[in-house]
């Protein structure tokens, strides 16, 4: 992270370059997308501000998320019972943000399993996820000073096909009976199959996903569920690093901004429909 002087130099330089570009007639720029551009710049600036604020020691309050507190409890339970932790990072590839978030949380879980010497089983559905997850787990074990406990086969590939993967994971659950099942990533219809099978073997289950349609199934069948943004907040929550926590605060402020914008737009649209103003706000909010 840049120091204050360096940061303002870089920011100033970029701003100056943009002003010069704009004043010279903004060649090649799609004018109809300027609103979106400004929104991205404002939101990014907001995130950077709060990240730097947290880095400088600013206090950030994070409410308790029961599902994340339960992760360590779940690993502890597995250790006591002498059983493994099953971690499912979703069924999609690394081009999905949720899968990357799932792999990041796997890193934190791996630190716990290495600390408690609990066995970890990570069946994956995509080859690139296998490589990324393997590296993440290897790094986690090395950082905890337990590279000897790491084995390549902890993270293993099953199949790309959705239901064949679900069948494979179900088989692992029924045969090995892990004490904890963690589902963190992007899921589709197989979510309930996995969660119900996990429930039938008596495992503690924690799920996290931003797949809207699968959230109800996880809420019904799992002990704890991270819903939507809580899942993306997990990395910050588990690591407690200032930068990530600041990013989380920035995200909350973005949401406050979006809510305010919705209310203002609603008011302006009502006024437009009543004929009290001539300017239709929907025209600038529509992405071209």
């Amino acid at each position, binding site marked *: 992270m840049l120091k204050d002087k360096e940061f303002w130099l870089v920011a100033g330089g970029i701003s100056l370059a943009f002003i010069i570009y704009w004043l010279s007639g903004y060649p090649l720029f799609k004018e109809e997308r300027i609103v979106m551009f400004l929104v991205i710049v404002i939101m990014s600036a907001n995130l950077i501000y709060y990240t730097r604020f947290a880095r400088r020691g600013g206090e950030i309050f994070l409410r308790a998320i029961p599902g994340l507190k339960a992760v360590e409890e779940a690993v502890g339970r597995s250790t006591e019972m002498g059983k493994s932790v099953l971690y499912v990072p979703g069924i999609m590839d690394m081009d999905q943000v949720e899968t990357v978030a799932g792999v990041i949380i796997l890193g934190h879980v791996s630190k716990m399993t290495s600390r408690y010497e609990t066995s970890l089983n990570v069946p994956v559905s995509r080859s690139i996820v296998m490589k990324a997850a393997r590296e993440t787990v290897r790094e986690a074990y090395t950082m905890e000073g337990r590279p000897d406990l790491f084995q390549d086969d902890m993270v293993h590939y099953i199949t790309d096909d959705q239901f064949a993967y679900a069948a494979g994971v179900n088989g692992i659950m029924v045969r090995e009976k892990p004490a904890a099942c963690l589902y963190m990533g992007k899921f589709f219809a197989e979510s309930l199959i996995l969660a119900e099978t996990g429930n039938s073997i008596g495992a503690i289950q924690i799920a996290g996903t931003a797949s*809207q349609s699968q959230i109800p199934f996880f809420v019904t069948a799992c002990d704890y569920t991270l819903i939507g943004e809580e899942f993306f907040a997990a990395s910050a929550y588990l690591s407690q690093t200032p930068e990530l926590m600041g990013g989380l605060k920035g995200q909350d402020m973005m949401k406050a901004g979006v809510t305010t914008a919705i209310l203002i737009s609603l008011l302006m649209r009502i006024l437009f429909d009543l004929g009290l103003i001539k300017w239709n706000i929907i025209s600038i909010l529509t992405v071209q």
Partner: protein
Amino acid sequence: MDKISDYILKAGTIDRRWIFLIIGLAVLLPLFFPLGLPIRATNATQKVYDAVEALEENSKVLVSFEYGPSTKPEIHPMAIGLLRHLFTNGHKVFVTCLWPDGQFMADEALDEVAKEEFDLTYGEDYVILGFRPGNEAVVKGMVSNIRKLYTTDARGTLVDNIPLMKNINKVADFDFIFSASAGYPGTVEWVQYASDPTGVPLSTGTTSIMVNDIMPMVNSGQVKGILAGMPGAAEYEALIGTPGIGTSGMDAQSIAHLVIVLFIIFGNITYFIETQRSKKY
């Protein structure tokens, strides 16, 4: 009264396999002994029907198959119903697939409807462009230049040699898009990268689970109606006047839903008795 409560509590600890057996019978029996329950179309299904009816004769319709064998019972009936509707009204159908399984489903649907029922000619009345890997990149590619993406169709024929493909170079050359979708990539990608930017109207049919994701787009007018799972397929079959596998499955679904509701009510009675007893003691 206590004896009845005891019995209910005992029944409440039922092994889940009994529940599975009862559900299995609830689905199986109506398939052998149909009830013939009347089917009433919802607004969402009516919108799809109206959108197709509003097309001018000989319209060029792009139908995308994004489902596989697992979701075939829900989506295949609506795909067949839609094809029947399109061919009855004399439209030209272009089929593409964002899922590899979709091509198998498309072949089967078109064999049944276009070939056997309507006796249509491949290459003049309908064409299967086939599957291309790339998820949303395929949609984006079709929006800019179909012929760059599809040099041959699913049967290996050069696209330039197919009469129906004359003057079809990009998505904007179509009059209507229908996405029969079971997940990703699917309806959302078609709306984001094809329908919204080009203005070509789009309708969709999805699994019941996915309807929640698409409903905001239906309400905002970006998607012209939605066929929601097997009930949606059955409703569409009722609207076009040709009952099919969607309709025949609805009796089973009705009874299965009723059985699940009864289980839920029974479970709550058990919970209520347990709560009362624990308060008492």
